[in-house]
């Protein structure tokens, strides 16, 4: 790409642009090869429901937006009519969002306070050691007997998942607060523990808190689909529902819908993160 005679910044810039283009093309090629393998695999596999082909899946995906479905909004008692895909996505969000937010707030609050207060840490650490390894989905039995497997039950499972991820992010974040900064704050008049937590520990732990929240966005999508496989309404339920009717291409369509929803949230949150953490 460069001859021994041409030197200087222009050449370097060319390499940079070409390098980006090349990476972009490689990515596209990877996708194209995957589609080809998938397509050939689907063509040569019988019976056809074992591997639904990309064309069938695309048609099923389009159908999610050309048909409409009526869903009930919880609490408000309203009925909504939306394109089928969006309708079931909305059903999922009805328990995903409250579970995620509540879990994140509770988890990071406990993490902050425990990381800050040694006495509370002593009290709770063994308990948390015992409870932490329980996979969120194992709580499904209690979600069912306590709340019934509907929005509340599924939200509870998501809550458990979000809780632990955010708890550990906050706990680690507070532990990493430099003593120099707390020293500086105390020479500037910060006396109470609560003020120190608010003015120094919280902003100092913000990067870890946000990373924790972003991780929980993804993890909770896994958990929410798991919860819905047990019967809560939403995209996860539709995956298994379609499969029960051997409409595997519809299952695939919902799988891609989840991927899309997750990517959108992740990218959105990354942008927010970059703004909030401009000081880093």
């Amino acid at each position, binding site marked *: 790409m460069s001859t021994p005679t041409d030197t200087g910044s222009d050449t370097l810039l060319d390499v940079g642009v070409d390098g980006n283009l090349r990476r972009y093309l490689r990515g596209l090629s990877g996708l194209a090869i995957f589609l080809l393998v998938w397509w050939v695999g689907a063509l040569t596999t019988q019976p056809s429901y074992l591997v639904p082909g990309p064309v069938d899946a695309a048609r099923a995906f389009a159908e999610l937006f050309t048909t409409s479905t009526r869903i009930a909004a919880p609490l408000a008692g309203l009925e909504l009519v939306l394109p089928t895909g969006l309708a079931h996505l909305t059903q999922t969000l009805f328990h995903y969002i409250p579970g995620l937010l509540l879990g994140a707030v509770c988890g990071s609050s406990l993490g902050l306070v425990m990381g800050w207060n040694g006495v509370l840490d002593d009290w709770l650490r063994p308990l948390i050691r015992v409870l932490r390894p329980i996979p969120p989905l194992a709580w499904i039995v209690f979600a069912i007997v306590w709340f019934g497997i509907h929005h509340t039950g599924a939200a509870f499972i998501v809550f458990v998942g979000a809780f632990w991820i955010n708890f550990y992010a906050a706990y680690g974040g507070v532990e990493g607060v*430099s003593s120099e900064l707390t020293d*500086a704050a*105390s*020479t*500037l*008049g*910060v006396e109470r523990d609560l003020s120190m937590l608010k003015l120094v520990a919280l902003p*100092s732990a913000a990067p870890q808190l946000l990373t924790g929240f972003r991780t929980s966005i993804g993890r909770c999508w896994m958990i929410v689909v798991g919860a819905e496989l047990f019967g809560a309404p939403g995209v996860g339920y539709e995956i298994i529902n379609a499969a029960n009717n051997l409409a595997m291409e519809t299952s695939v369509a919902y799988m891609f819908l989840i991927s899309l929803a997750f990517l959108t949230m992740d990218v959105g949150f990354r942008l927010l993160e970059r703004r909030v953490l401009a*000081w880093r």
Partner: protein
Amino acid sequence: MALSEPAPDPVKSDRKIVVDGVSKAYDTVQALSEVSLAVQEGEFCCIVGPSGCGKTTLLRTIAGLEDANSGSILVDGDRVTGPGLDRGMVFQEYALFPWRTVCGNIRFGLDRPACDCVDCEQRIRELVNLVGLSGFEDAYPKELSGGMKQRVGIARALAVDPEILLLDEPFGSVDARTRDRLHDELLDIWAETQQTVVFVTHDIDEAVKLADRIVVLDDDPGTVQSTVTVDIDHPRKRTSHEFVEYVARIRDELGRPSDANQRNNNF
């Protein structure tokens, strides 16, 4: 050239800070052993000593960030039990709040309920000008050079208008030219605010450049080796005969083996 001073009398009222027989040990290391000294109101006092002689510990104890194992620290006759707004501190590694801008850092102490400034915005503007950071009000610490960071550190400590300014090797990580400029600026600020300054350094030149009086600490364990009053008019030139003589004298003091009798006669 005054060679030494008599022992401080803790009850005399123009003594702003009195360190009285302070000892401090960490695990097995004796950081400070029976250190006594006094700093006059409005005085610029430098504490010099080899690395690990406990000079930072001494400063942190005066700031109230460390408790002494024995002995006491008095400020205006009152025993120090913790940090207070009467003692501003400037840290070696700046200790700026990275999520706050230059102005945000300076205003940190003013946001406390203790603040009674009539117009905080005006005060912050004045401080930004005082330390020469106009135009960088909204910059984050990561965007600043070491010298600029320490200017913010100084302005932040000055914001709450402390009577005492404690500086812990503040210019240790800035280049020599910037350090010279910061010395002049610090002396200007001191002349203006008339604060009592305690400045810790291991750099003898720096101490002779700045101080009214230099306290030489000896290591292992940290004890006061001697104190030297620097009697040269400002601005002091490093190349002047007197300057060089003071530097040589303090270097001698540092090299001299510590001796309990000499200490008692000379601190």
